[in-house]
């Protein structure tokens, strides 16, 4: 785990040299500096801007209420993303649209069952459009989209991702790997559909 919460005894004392007010303000400034990344991640989780905004706002409310439980000097960004993901899991429980647990093993099994044949294709970078990339990402099963997004876009380590989504590190690695392959296939499929329409 890359961060820890203060124990009851340590939360009573503050390192010398900073007042509560300064600490709160610096904490808030740093926390708010991650808002774009949190919002982009929330959009990929909820796929709806209004829900993404609510999710980010709830994340900040919880973080600010619990700021004293955050251990200074540890990874605030990962702490915020963990709150975001846990809040999202709580939210979807209330929502009939999406009753599937994002960490369900059935997701992994479904992908296994779909086979693992890939077309060799290595020239995605220049030819891929942002819209295609986003649409292909959104089409991935939640667990794979989260793993790939947190790794390749948000630049978290495997251990941080494991803490954020609450699964073992080995599972994170295999989700990243398989998620990238699924995304690759989705992009190739999209491209051939576009070419078929154009031609």
């Amino acid at each position, binding site marked *: 785990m890359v961060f820890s*919460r*203060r*124990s*009851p005894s340590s939360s009573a004392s503050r390192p010398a040299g900073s007042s*509560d*007010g300064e600490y*709160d303000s610096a904490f*808030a400034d740093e926390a708010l500096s991650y*808002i*774009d*990344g*949190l*919002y*982009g991640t929330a*959009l990929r989780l909820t796929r709806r801007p209004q829900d993404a*905004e*609510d999710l*980010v706002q709830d994340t*900040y*409310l919880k973080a*600010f*209420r*619990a*700021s*004293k*439980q955050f251990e200074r000097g540890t990874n605030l960004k990962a702490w915020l993303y963990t*709150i975001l993901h*846990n*809040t999202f*899991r*709580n939210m979807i*429980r*209330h*929502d*009939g649209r999406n*009753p599937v*647990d994002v*960490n*369900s093993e059935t997701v992994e099994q479904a992908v296994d069952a779909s086979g*693992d044949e890939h077309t*060799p294709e*290595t020239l995605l*970078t220049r030819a*891929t459009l*942002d819209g295609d990339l986003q649409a292909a*990402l959104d089409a991935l099963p939640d667990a794979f989209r989260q793993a*790939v997004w947190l*790794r*390749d*876009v948000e630049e978290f380590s*495997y251990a941080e991702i494991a803490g954020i989504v*609450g699964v073992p590190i080995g599972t994170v*690695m*295999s989700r*990243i*790997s398989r998620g*990238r*392959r699924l995304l*690759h296939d989705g*992009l190739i499929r999209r491209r051939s559909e576009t070419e078929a329409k154009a031609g």
Partner: protein
Amino acid sequence: MADCRDLEELLAPYVDGEAREVDCAAVDAHLRTCPACRTKVSCERSVREALIARRQSIRANAPADLRRRCAAAHAAATPASGASLPAGAGRRRGRWVPLSMAASVLLAFAGVFFYGLRGGGPALAAQLVADHVSCFEFAPQPTIIPDGRALGREWAATRGWNLKVPENTDTEQLTLLDIRRCISSDAVTAHLLYKWRGQPLSVYVMSRPYPRIGPKPQLVEEAGQEAFMWTKNDRTYAVVARGRPADVEHVARYVQTAAE
């Protein structure tokens, strides 16, 4: 010689250049003899490169209004503005424990099942009761006793609608534990979690009226819990708790007066 499946967890670190030397050598050796895995690696590498190259443009910027509201959330949540932290309140347990898979699967089934069978009040009651039970059973007990008025102010500042939070009362033995927001596809819902006579009690305030729930309160029994529901000014209110119907109705009447 390693099997393709054995390498599954090594491919991401291999592609990212973060595999240990010994793992790297194992993957290299396997790739020399396995065209399928060579294809996998090249697919994964090209996707990672594409994502890194497009990182800036596929990231979204938070809307200015969201930024403003989140900054306001800080002002509302800091102790100076009134949130209370009673002396001796321990903070041993984090407040965001992921729901166990079994619990969420169970809940999903319960919601779909009841909703499919009935309409109107009982359907809403069933969903609220399921939510009430899971929220209390699978969430850790809050260790900080919140200040209802401060949470109400937070809600108003960040949600744009006023939420009257019924105050703690010794007469009814009612103590506020937490306020949560629920997403559903058609309403914004405030979920107020209380302790009532030592037992869980939920107050729900929903941002819209529901069919067959009128201004006259109705009491519905669902899965051993009582749900007391009514509408007022285009909002739907519900109190959910386990207890004798008359007792639940009594405390619900207090909530009704205090929440509207």
